[in-house]
Structure formats: structure tokens, C-alpha cells
């Protein structure tokens, strides 16, 4: 089977970030600055991705604006016909730089928030003063005429602010809001006991989102991602492994999703060593779970197998130690009841303290 070309490329330009969010999607074993690819290497990757069929590029990190060459990379992507998106914390980029990025061809900004008020948000981010800087950056984005998506990661310690988050997004004239419950890999898995919401919290969130969608139709688009420990069917992770999406790490590792390095039984090709199209078509990590041939029961006989694609490989590995198992978020998985029991226990008896995401805690983690 020859796979379709990918739609989107996410480039993690760096793992450096001033924030320390305890659910960061970066791997536990973060890349240091010295391992990051050069401007020329990234430009080559961008041209290859456009040639391969990508239509969109997401500049992410870490915090992508720590790279002084971001303007060059945005311009390269725009020249290659890619639709460009910046995923940022907004705390390092002033108005002049944002205007330079817009002039280079930036089309959209996705700005992260950690809560609806400074005390809560700054504690979660582990960064004093961050919330105010983000609000100021949001004004700069709108002043530059760029569309803005406000991204809120929600969990037990900020879920009660959900209505205020939606109000905030409307006030800052965001066109979209993403309200994404934490997904538990890497750093988030380390912090699961401090983050897991209760089922009651989830039900309140679902009601709030549903009411806001009705109230704000045509004004604010709302994307809501549930915590899949409480789901009946798994999420169609990445629209299917190796089918729509490519992720490139700061040092050039090509990943089927941003959490894929948590699957320690897979080996990943590097774009410094092989052409991107070869990696997409033939790389063993991409072929491992592409399509439906790899599936076990109950996926194999399931009429949803080409809808949810067996769910999330990283979650299967995190919970069962075998990435080829059915995602335990699926109620048909033999591991589902254990997953739900874990969630309920974490939600009820977990503490509030975080292991913050930084190079120091990474070093202290066993096995790294």
C-alpha cells in the first residue's frame, strides 16, 4: 500500500521554553540547544515537506520564538506555498517581532493559556507574570490583523475556570478557542495524579461547552477535547498513524506524532540522514502502525477501525507496555476498566504538587 501524502507538518524547532507546564507534550528526554538543527537544515526540511504534499506547517517547540531565525523559516514556508501557523506561549515575542513574522508570511497564531486568572495560570506555567504578557501579546496579534486561536489546556486544577476562559477568548477577539483536556503521556503522565479531573468536572465542562457553542455560533469556534480516560471510544489519534501528519523534533527526528518518542520500542529516522519522502513512505516507525494490518482484536473486527484507527499508540504503550494493543481508552479494550479505575483514583486522592517540566527535573528522572 502506498500511503497518501501528509497534510500537515509540525516542526518542534527547539525544546527550550521559559514556561514549565507540567503537561508539556515534549518528551521527558529534552533536546539541548546544541542538538538543534540549523537554519539551512530547517529550510531544507520545509521545502521537502511542501514537495511531499504538506499544505500546512505548524511552528512549535518548546517556545519557537527563542529561535532568532523564525522569520527566515516562516518566509521559506510561505514561499513554498505552505499555510503557516505559530504555536506560542507569547511571553518572548514583542510587537515589532510579531509584525516581522506577519510580514514574512505568518497566517495564524495559536496562543497558549494556562488558566483564566494570573495566580492560577502563572502557578501552572511555573512562570511569574506570564499571564499578563500573554494578554498583551494577544492584543498585538489582533492589531497585526492575524487570526488568533486561544488554547487552554484544562485539568482538575483549572477546569472550574472554563466559562471564564471562553469569556476571555471572546474579549480578546479570538476566532477560535481550543479547550483541550490533558492527554497523558510524557510529562503529563508523570503529573497525572495532580491533573486528572473528576467525572463530575467533566460533565460540567461538557455542559458549558455545549451552551457556549449555541450562544457563540459564528462568533467563536470552540474545539473541545475530552480526557479520553473517561471516553467510550478512543480518539482517532493524528487522523491515523502515518496518514496525515508528520512531526519533526529539534534534532531532526521524524515522528508520526509529537509523543511518539514515548514508545521506546520504536526507532525513528532522522531527516539529517535520509530524505523526508523516503522516511514517510518507508520508515519503520511510520509503517509500524499505518493502516489496519497491525491491529489486534477487538480492533480487527470492529466497524470503527477506519474511523478511530485503533486510537492512540502512545497511550496503548503507556498503559500496557505494548504499543500494538487496542487503546485502553476504548471500552472494548480488556484494559479499559483498569484505566478508568486509575482515573477515578487519581481524581479523588491525587495531590496538587507538580513535577515541573524543565531540564533540571528531566535530569532527575530515573532512566534518562
Amino acid at each position, binding site marked *: 500500500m502506498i500511503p497518501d501524502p501528509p497534510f500537515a507538518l509540525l516542526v518542534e524547532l527547539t525544546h527550550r521554553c521559559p514556561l514549565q507546564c507540567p503537561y508539556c507534550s515534549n518528551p521527558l528526554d529534552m533536546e539541548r540547544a546544541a542538538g538543534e538543527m540549523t537554519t539551512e537544515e530547517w529550510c531544507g526540511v520545509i521545502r521537502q515537506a511542501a514537495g511531499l504534499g504538506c499544505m500546512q506547517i505548524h511552528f512549535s517547540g518548546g517556545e519557537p520564538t527563542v529561535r532568532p531565525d523564525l522569520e527566515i523559516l516562516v518566509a521559506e514556508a510561505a514561499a513554498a506555498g505552505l499555510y503557516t501557523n505559530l504555536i506560542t506561549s507569547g511571553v518572548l515575542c514583542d510587537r515589532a517581532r510579531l509584525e516581522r513574522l506577519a510580514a514574512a508570511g505568518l497566517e495564524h497564531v495559536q496562543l497558549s493559556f494556562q488558566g483564566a486568572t494570573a495566580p492560577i495560570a502563572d502557578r501552572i506555567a511555573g512562570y511569574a507574570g506570564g499571564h499578563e504578557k500573554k494578554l498583551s501579546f494577544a492584543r498585538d496579534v489582533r492589531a497585526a490583523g492575524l487570526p488568533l486561536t486561544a488554547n487552554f489546556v484544562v485539568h482538575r486544577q483549572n477546569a472550574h475556570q472554563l466559562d471564564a476562559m471562553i469569556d476571555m477568548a471572546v474579549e480578546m477577539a479570538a476566532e477560535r478557542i481550543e479547550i483541550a483536556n490533558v492527554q497523558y503521556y510524557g510529562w503529563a503522565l508523570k503529573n497525572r495524579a495532580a491533573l486528572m479531573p473528576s467525572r463530575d468536572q467533566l460533565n460540567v465542562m461538557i455542559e458549558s461547552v455545549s451552551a457556549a457553542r449555541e450562544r457563540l455560533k*459564528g462568533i467563536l469556534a470552540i474545539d473541545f477535547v475530552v480526557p479520553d480516560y473517561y471516553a467510550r471510544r478512543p480518539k482517532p489519534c493524528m487522523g491515523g498513524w502515518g496518514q496525515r501528519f508528520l512531526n519533526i523534533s529539534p534534532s531532526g527526528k521524524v515522528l508520526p506524532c509529537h509523543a511518539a518518542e514515548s514508545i521506546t520500542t520504536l526507532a525513528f529516522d532522522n531527516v539529517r540522514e535520509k530524505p523526508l519522502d523516503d522516511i514517510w513512505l518507508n520508515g519503520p516507525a511510520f509503517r509500524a502502525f499505518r493502516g489496519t494490518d497491525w491491529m489486534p482484536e477487538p480492533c480487527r473486527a470492529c466497524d470503527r477501525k477506519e474511523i478511530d484507527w485503533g486510537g492512540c499508540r502512545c497511550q496503548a504503550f503507556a498503559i500496557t507496555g505494548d504499543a500494538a494493543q487496542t487503546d485502553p481508552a476504548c471500552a472494548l479494550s480488556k484494559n479499559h476498566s483498569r484505566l478508568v479505575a486509575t482515573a477515578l483514583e487519581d481524581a479523588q486522592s491525587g495531590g496538587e504538587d507538580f513535577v515541573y517540566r524543565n531540564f533540571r527535573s528531566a535530569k532527575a528522572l530515573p532512566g534518562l
Partner: protein
Amino acid sequence: MTERVLLVGDSVPRLAPHRRLRRDLQRGVWTVQAPERCFILDETAHAILSRCDGNASLAAIIASLCAAFPDAPHDTIAADVTHLLQDLADKGVVAA
């Protein structure tokens, strides 16, 4: 956006800022690239959106499509075009 855009006959629908009509060469389809979204257009949707040039009113776009597809009933075209553009306006793809 502070209120919902509601399209009427003399509205002038156009792609919202930073939405791009792009040909996807690999898959041979027209698309609209938008924040966190890629809308794949069928021939009808492309025929409609390619007429949203920032000058033509909704009524003029409908008239142009009726001339291009004389076998289809005018009322059907008018309803389909209005429905599609209103839906895209609600998704932030189309401004007016």
C-alpha cells in the same frame, strides 16, 4: 468577531482574511487553508467560492451560477449557494 455574519442578497461574501484558496497538487483538489483547518472543496463548492471575489454580491453570484448551470432550477441553486456560504461564514471561512 463580535456578531454572527448573516448573508442576504446584497451581502458581498469573500474569503475572510488569512484564508487561502489553494490547489492541492498532490491530491488534485481545491482547498481552503484556514487556521487549524483544511477544507477540501468539491466542484460545486469551488464554483461558488471562486466567484467570491470581493465585488460580486450574493445575488450576483447566484445569477452567475444559474447562467453557468442552466439545467438546474434557480431556486435550488439559490438555496444551495446561500446555505453553503452561510455555513462557511459560521466557520469563519467567509466574511461579508
